[in-house]
């Protein structure tokens, strides 16, 4: 997956803000403020690296899980485990993806539960992917 990086500079040539766009236009990552060029670049490189790795793993997961109905098989896929292994940076990336998936959210709930250590989904909504996605997105907005 490739990204378009857009930079805005001050009249002195310093990087004032920058953001990047995913090819589908779905997610926009923004950073701005009084960063020095080097600091901003470093921040971007870290976030960009996480986002790129997450997207690659998420795509790989689609292939690895195949037509399995088993949640156990799904969450034990190496790519899904690697996403969990990314730690806290994966939380916002998963939530952004969950939002982008709209009416057909994917099964990110186990990863979110492990990464956050909580499960905000009411017992009566367990298994209902749309309701679970809504709950997690609201949880994300309220952090």
């Amino acid at each position: 997956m490739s990204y378009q990086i857009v930079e805005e500079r001050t009249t002195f040539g310093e990087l004032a803000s920058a953001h990047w766009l995913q090819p589908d236009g779905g997610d926009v990552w923004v950073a701005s403020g009084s960063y020095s060029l080097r600091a901003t670049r470093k921040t971007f490189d870290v976030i960009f690296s996480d986002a790129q790795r997450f997207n690659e793993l998420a795509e790989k997961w689609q292939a690895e899980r195949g037509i399995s109905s088993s949640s156990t098989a799904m969450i034990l896929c190496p790519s899904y485990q690697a996403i969990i292994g990314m730690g806290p940076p994966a939380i916002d990336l998963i939530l952004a993806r969950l939002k982008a998936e709209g009416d057909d959210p994917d099964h990110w709930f186990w990863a979110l539960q492990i990464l956050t250590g909580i499960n905000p989904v009411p017992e009566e909504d367990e298994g209902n992917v749309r309701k679970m996605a809504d709950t997690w997105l609201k949880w994300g907005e309220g952090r």
Partner: protein
Amino acid sequence: MSRNWPARELPQLDEFNCIDHSDKTNSYNCIAWAVGDTSRWWWPLPLRGGGNYWPEDTPRDETMEAFVTLFKNRGYTECDDGSLEDGNEKVAIFAKVNGRPVPTHAAYQLESGKWTSKLGRFEDVIHDEVTDVDGPAYGVPIVYLRRQRTHHPIINN
């Protein structure tokens, strides 16, 4: 409707023995489909939550025994095969046969004698024979169960 599932995983399923019945969706899986629930994904993960529904009346075990119990608790009893019986409906529970059989899939028999399967996160389909979905992904039918036909709450038999 387009077929999105990877064909290599269901090598026996083709345009001659299978028709699509739905669009692909993450909302429900084969177990949910077999019991007639298109609002939830059913699977017995050992811990509560994590995105799955599993009824309280059934052990949270990924074993044939637990899956058989799931259907027995819904009025089914074990039977010998997937032949069409007047007045009865059947389900088949699949597993891979290398080592201890771990459930992989369930299919439901329609009144016509054909079968219907939800293919993971992909479409649900109607196929001629229960064994049409045999293959590397699901293995083969291990257990058949039957009960008096109640009509699937969603699919038109």
